[in-house]
């Protein structure tokens, strides 16, 4: 812990990828630079991930660096400073939202995976659900585990065997199936009525492959990597029948209240699909949405006096783009404000609006910083990148509307 009471964390991410050539190591943090020209073709991306990360880390009062060896992989590390969290931490809240989770206590799972770090990650996910985990790193080890009538405590019950796709093949599947049918925990004489299930952990399985596997009864379910808590819960619920009827509810609506309720928002975009999606998202928060197609129309709608509480403006439109429209709107507003100041226009007709400044947020697919500067220069109040999800939209607009 530092003197200011901040906690400094070191985060390291180790991979077993192709590594980064020494010649390229000097430039990978530069925007739009990738290790070499083939990177984009092979892996996609535009080369801004690391430069964004570097800036974020700097903003978080930290540093970022890496070690890499071609053919072995890379380890990226960064430091950042955090304040100590409150006792009412996320995990507790999360468990409160997921009553089904307590139903998994006492279950045991066997993870079969040759990569020990990956197996530990799987263990971590399962333990979060209250499931205890044993790991074996090979098919043979798993077979001896299963056939040795492994002693589990009376309170533990082997419910699932999770096998990573790297180790799995048809033969393995058949062997496990057979062993599990004969599995007798605690050296009992009788076989389990419901034998443990087999889950395959795989990155991508098409629905035909999935059906083939299931109909050959080789696996009971496929869990996709990277592991996600909600899909693990689903699989386990299906396999064990526990907590099937519980709805897992997430969502920002319940926690963030009604900040946008009944607020009048203007959406400006020349593309009708984008308009409809923006409208749908804002309506979800209870806003009253009006849509227009052009900068010119926006100018008409936002000429004071008007009823709008905020405006979402697309930047790239034909004829008059978002920048120009905003500039003109600000100009009209300032002229109107002058008139109020000089008494030329009475302000009590307009519910005490002594100073017109409609919050205007840019909607853009362009994440380059210069766009943000341009937005600010012409009088915009912020921006959201397209397409925006509920959370992004919400946090962009919330600061304009005081709660209560």
């Amino acid at each position, binding site marked *: 812990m530092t003197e200011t009471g901040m906690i400094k964390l070191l985060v390291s991410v180790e991979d077993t990828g192709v590594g980064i050539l020494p010649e390229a190591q000097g430039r990978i943090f530069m925007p739009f630079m990738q290790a070499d020209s083939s990177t984009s073709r092979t892996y*996609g991306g535009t080369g801004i991930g690391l430069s964004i990360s570097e800036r974020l880390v700097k903003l978080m009062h930290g540093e970022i660096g890496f070690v890499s060896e071609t053919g072995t992989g890379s380890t990226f590390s960064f430091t950042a400073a955090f304040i100590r969290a409150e006792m009412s931490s996320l995990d507790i809240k999360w468990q409160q939202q997921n009553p089904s989770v307590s139903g998994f206590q006492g279950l045991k799972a066997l993870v079969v995976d040759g990569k020990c770090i990956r197996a530990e990650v799987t263990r971590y996910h399962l333990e979060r659900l209250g499931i205890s985990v044993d790991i074996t790193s090979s098919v043979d080890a798993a077979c001896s585990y299963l056939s040795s009538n492994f002693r589990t405590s009376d309170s533990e019950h082997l419910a699932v065997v999770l096998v990573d796709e790297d180790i799995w093949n048809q033969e393995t599947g058949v062997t496990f199936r057979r062993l599990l049918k004969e599995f007798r925990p605690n050296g009992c004489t009788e076989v389990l009525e419901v034998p443990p299930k087999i889950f395959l952990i795989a990155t*991508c*399985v*098409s*629905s035909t492959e*999935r*059906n083939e596997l299931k109909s050959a009864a080789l696996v009971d379910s496929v869990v*996709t990597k990277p592991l*996600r808590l*909600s*899909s693990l819960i*689903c699989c386990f619920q299906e396999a064990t029948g526990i907590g099937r009827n519980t709805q897992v509810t997430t*969502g920002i609506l319940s926690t963030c209240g009604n900040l946008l309720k009944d607020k009048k928002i203007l959406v400006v975009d*020349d*593309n*009708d*699909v*984008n308009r*409809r*999606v923006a409208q*749908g*998202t804002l*309506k*979800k928060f209870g806003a009253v949405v009006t849509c227009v197609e052009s900068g010119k129309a926006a100018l008409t709608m936002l000429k004071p006096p008007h009823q709008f509480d905020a405006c979402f403006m697309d930047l*790239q439109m*034909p004829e008059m783009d978002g920048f120009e429209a905003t500039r003109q709107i600000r100009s009209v507003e300032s002229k109107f404000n002058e008139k109020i100041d000089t008494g030329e226009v009475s302000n009590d007709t307009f519910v005490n609006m002594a100073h017109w400044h409609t919050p205007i947020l840019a909607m853009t*697919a362009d994440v380059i910083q210069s766009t943000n500067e341009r937005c600010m220069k012409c009088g915009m109040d912020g921006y959201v990148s*397209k*397409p925006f*999800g*509920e959370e992004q939209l919400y946090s962009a607009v919330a600061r304009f509307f005081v709660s209560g």
Partner: protein
Amino acid sequence: MEVGQLQERFVDYTKSLFCEGFLDDQFLQLQQLQDESNPDFVVEVVSLFFEDSEKLLNDLTKTLDQQFVDYKRVDAQVHQLKGSSSSIGAQRVKNACIGFRNFCEEQNIEGCLRCLHQVKQEYSLVKNKLQTLFRLEQQIVAAGGAIPMVE
């Protein structure tokens, strides 16, 4: 076919669309925006997308067929298509548009024509997939079931 099987098929099909990259998270966002006050939101927006895209693709074909190609116009149209495909989560169409814009900048006619072909293909594929998805939904509802939420 009974409801349970239809629902399972629906879930599997939806998952495969995500797995194979046809759809991305944005499509999930759209589904979350659908509720009792907006019961047909997804179908509505996707239909708009189909209408829009077909116009754009026809226009693009004409523009690229001219003797003197107006690359600015091509770029503007591809930008539109990229925007709307991105808004509904049609990932592969969106990605095809990104490459397309690079060729526009270079004023490379062959590259543009190749990209147009690719975009048309991806559009056709995703249109097909989405229509199948909607049909499955209709079948479930007709059989008296509820449409399952897919993670």
